[in-house]
Each structure stands twice: as C-alpha cells, then as structure tokens.
C-alpha cells in the first residue's frame, strides 16, 4: 500500500520546507493548502487495472511531480484529475478525487466544467491551426468569457512568457511558431480559462534543452498563482523544478501504484523506500 502524505510527514522531523526554491518561499505545513485529494484511487480500463489504490494530496501553489518508469500509469493518474480519461469509453475510476472539497466523479458533475478549472498541457504541443490570438481566446470563448478579450489574451501570453515574442504577430498561425513557443502558446491558452490547477504531461519531452529550461522557469513563475502537477520522465527536471515528488512504479500485477511521496529534496537525497532509492540512482527505469 502506498503511504499517504499525511502518514509520512512527521512533524518533528521536517516542519519546514526543505530546499527552499529560488523565489525564497518558505512554507510551513500549516501554510500548505490541499486543493486536490486523491483517496484510494484505482483506474480500470475495462477489467484491466492500470493504477491501484493511490492516496495523494496535492497542495495549492506548489509544483508536484509524478515520476516513475514508463508505462506505470503516471499519465493515467494525471488525467483522472481533469477527467480526460472519460474520453475512453471503457475507463472506470474507483475511489474518490476531491477538488476543493468537491468530489470530481460524483454523478452530476460535468466534466466540461472540471476541465475549465483544471487545465492541461500535453507532451507534444498541439496548437490549433488558427491565429495565435484565436488559440489563446479559444478556451475563453467556449466558456463564455464576456470580458475584454484583448486584455485576456495579452495577459495570458505575458504569463506564459510569450508576449514579447509574438505581440506583433498575433494574427499569424499558431503553428508557425517553434516547438518551445508552441508549448508556451498551449500554456497561455490553458491559462486563459483561469484554471486553478494546471496539469502538465511531460511538457518538455518534445523540446530542445533551451526551450525546456524556459518552460521550467515559466513554471516557477506560474507557481505563484496556479497549482501545477507535472508528469515527467526526466528525473533531473523533477529534482530541479518541483516542490513535492511522488514516485510511482508498476507492480507485478501491472498496475501502477505510488511508492513514496515527499518533499523533492528529501525524496531524491534520502528516500524512505528502497525502490525509490533504486530508481533515483538509476538502477532501473
């Protein structure tokens, strides 16, 4: 069984955050506000269990990383948070996910509304073949935004650190940008729906190192206003960029489960589980 965050956090040992981020933020346990709670979550595709018994708390205004070898269900788990798995007809979830205390998978919950509040950025940038402006405005428009669109677009692009590069060519096609710019465009359009949470599914794996660094820097800034959950293959990235890391792996029954969760620095330098130690030191994965 994967230990939940609440159980492992021993108040005596680590009351303060370890390895403060460059922005100088220190947060106490009391300051951590849990926005997403996964309680005993298991994911099924038909009769195949892809993820089992996950308990995970995700705190607001932090970056939580999910790491682990490929195929262990990290993406599946990530997608439960914005109900993207619903697009697969045979998908089924057991357990409960709470968003701000409200259950996400309650019968009357509308996935469309969930997805407005929980944004997602994908592995391969997927801008629409529309203008940059229309890309950013798309989410806002479908959700009935009635404010000043120009302002919203500019603001979203600024927050995605893309404004200066595209402000003179907003009418150009979003697909004419470079890979890194396209990904920032995707982040901008996700931000435009004013989500609380941004999910990122290996957002840098299709980008070159320079673009990757830009995205990581962007994530630091975004953290001030948004909660970020990122799935990444790249351990160094998780170590650099995240506050909390959850390590998942695949069990003998081919179901993924969370081995260990903890503050990033601690997980990488002094993990509790042997399996975690093996993974972060490169012995498998």
């Amino acid at each position: 069984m994967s230990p939940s965050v609440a159980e492992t956090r021993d108040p005596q040992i680590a009351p303060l955050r370890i390895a403060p981020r460059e922005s100088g933020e220190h947060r106490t346990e009391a300051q951590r506000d849990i926005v997403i709670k996964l309680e005993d979550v298991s994911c099924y595709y038909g009769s195949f269990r892809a993820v089992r018994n996950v308990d995970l708390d995700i705190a607001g205004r932090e970056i939580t990383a999910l790491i682990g070898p490929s195929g262990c269900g990290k993406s599946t788990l990530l997608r439960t948070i914005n109900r993207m798995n619903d697009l697969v007809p045979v998908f089924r979830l057991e357990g409960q996910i709470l968003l701000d205390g409200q259950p996400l998978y309650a019968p009357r919950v509308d996935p469309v509304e969930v997805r407005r509040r929980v944004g997602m950025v994908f592995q391969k940038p997927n801008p629409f073949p529309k203008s940059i402006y229309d890309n950013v405005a798309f989410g806002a428009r479908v959700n009935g935004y009635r404010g000043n669109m120009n302002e919203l677009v500019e603001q979203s692009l600024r927050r995605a650190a893309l404004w200066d590069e595209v402000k003179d060519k907003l009418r150009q096609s979003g697909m004419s940008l470079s890979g890194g710019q396209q990904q920032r465009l995707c982040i901008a359009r996700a931000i435009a729906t004013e989500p609380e949470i941004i999910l990122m599914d290996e957002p840098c794996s299709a980008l070159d190192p320079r673009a990757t660094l830009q995205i990581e820097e962007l994530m630091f800034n975004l953290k001030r206003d948004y909660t970020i959950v990122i799935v990444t293959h790249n351990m160094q990235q998780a170590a650099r960029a995240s506050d909390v890391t959850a390590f998942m792996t695949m069990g003998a029954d081919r179901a993924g489960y969370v081995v260990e969760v903890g503050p990033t620095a601690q997980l990488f330098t002094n993990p509790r589980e042997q399996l975690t130690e093996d993974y972060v030191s490169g012995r498998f994965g």
Partner: protein
Amino acid sequence: MRTVSNEMTAARRPLTRRVPASERLIEVLLFLAAAVGVVTTIGIVLVLLAQALDFFREVSPIAFLTGTVWSASIEPLQFGIIPLVVGTLDIAVIALVVAIPFGLLAAVYLAEYASMRTRNVVKPVLETIAGIPTIVLGFFALNFVTPRLLKPLFGSDIGTFNVLSAGIVVGLLITPLIASLSEDALRAVPRGLREGAFAMGATKWEVVRKVAFPAALSGIMASIILAMSRAMGETMAVVLAAGMNPQLSLDPRQSVETMTAFIVQISTGDTPQNSIQFKSLFAVALVLFSITLMLNLISNRIVARFRNRYS
C-alpha cells in the same frame, strides 16, 4: 496577482452544470442526417420490391428469371431476362478483359516502380479517365472505336452497335478503379516482406511477382469484383455503344441490350406508366440491384478479411 475576471472566477463554483439543450438537439439533427443513408437504402429496396411484385402478379418470376426471349414491345410479349443478363455480362466480361491487364500493370508500376514525379503525372491521368462522364465514353465508342478501330478490323461483319466497342470503353472506364485499389493493396503489403525477399537476392520483378502481388491478392481480387459491379451497372456508355437489341447472342460484334439499356429504353419511350412493359422496368432493376449489391458485399468481405491480416 491573478486578475479577477468576473464570471470566470474559479472560486467555489459548483462542478455541476447542465448540459445545454442545444448540445442534445445538435446530436439529434446530426443523427437524422446520418439516418438519411439508411432511409435511402430501405427506400430503394422497398420501391423495387413493391413495384416488381406488382409485375410478378402478371408474369411468373420463374419465367422471368429463366426465359431466354425478351420481347417487351413486340407481340407476343415475353419477359425472359436471360438475354438482358447475358448482354450485361458480355460487356462486363470484355470490359474486365481490357481493364484487368492494364489496370494491374499500372498499379504495379505506381506501387513499385514510379518515382514521385511520374506518379504526379500518371495518377492525374487515371483520375481524369475515371472522371469522364459515361455518355462521353459512349460517344467515343460510337464515333471512334467502332468506325476507326473495329470496322477496319472486322469489316462489315460488325455492326454500328456492338458489344465489343461497349466493352472496350467500359473497360477504359473501370481501369482506374482497378488500378487505384490494387495500388492501395500493394502498398499495404508490409515493407518487411519485400525486404526479406530482396535480402535473399531476388530481383525487383521477382519480389513483385512472388511476394508483393500474392500478398496483395485479396485486395486485388476485391478491386476486380468491384470493377465488375461497376461495369454491370453502367448505362449510358452501353446505350450508345451497344444499342438496344435484346437478342440473346454471344457474338461480340452484334448489338445487344443490357439491363440498364432496357430501363432507359422503356422510360424514354411512350410506354404508359401502368402497362406491363413499364412495370417490367422495376423487375429488371431489382435483378440489377441484387447482382451489384451482392458483388459489392463480396468485395467488402474480401477487403475486411484482407485488412485483418495486416493490421
């Protein structure tokens, strides 16, 4: 520093939201559009059956299906469909004899040998041929194929309206069909199969003949069956080229009448709509529809089984 934008504040809005009625309405409308297809099929079957049954009240179906004399306008009226079916088959067979070698050779070339440049020339040519209105092909048969190609060959033995010219132009019509479907079938054969043969020292032609072609055979067969169905359903080209003489004859130099030509003949004539001749139109159409439908279904089955093998 997050801007508070009025309606969209993420704050504690409930997660439930009604699916707007317009979404449901749109889905219903789209479904109705898709249902037009089913309605059409059912409609065609019903119309043909109903009217044909009306015909069969006066003419026995057995006599209809097995009779060898078709005389719809001249007394004594006889409605044996065999001459029409044979006429249709005659032309279809000749068309296939023309189209299969040309189509397959073209397909092999396009799939195995052609460079990008040649493809960009050959494919448009094939598509143009496929796009020629069939009445133009009939005109071509009447004005060129018969007088300039066939008459010099056969002299006065061949009539102005003859099966051979109809078969040739219909063959031209269906060649692109065989070519493009067979090309697809050849391309669907996995590279690994070919590379294995090359690695053993086979020449390019041998790889095509002994590996690619046999592997693509079901796709090729399916294309031929589809082409045959198309040839049998062809109307205007055969009307102009083969005329409307419903004699039971296997001589390609003669004029015959196909099922489709008969349907045209009756509807352009002065035949009153409740006469037995007019009703025979529907019975003939029913037979034509059944044959082409059966061929199409067989072709689909073969394609489905073929696709499963390589997916």
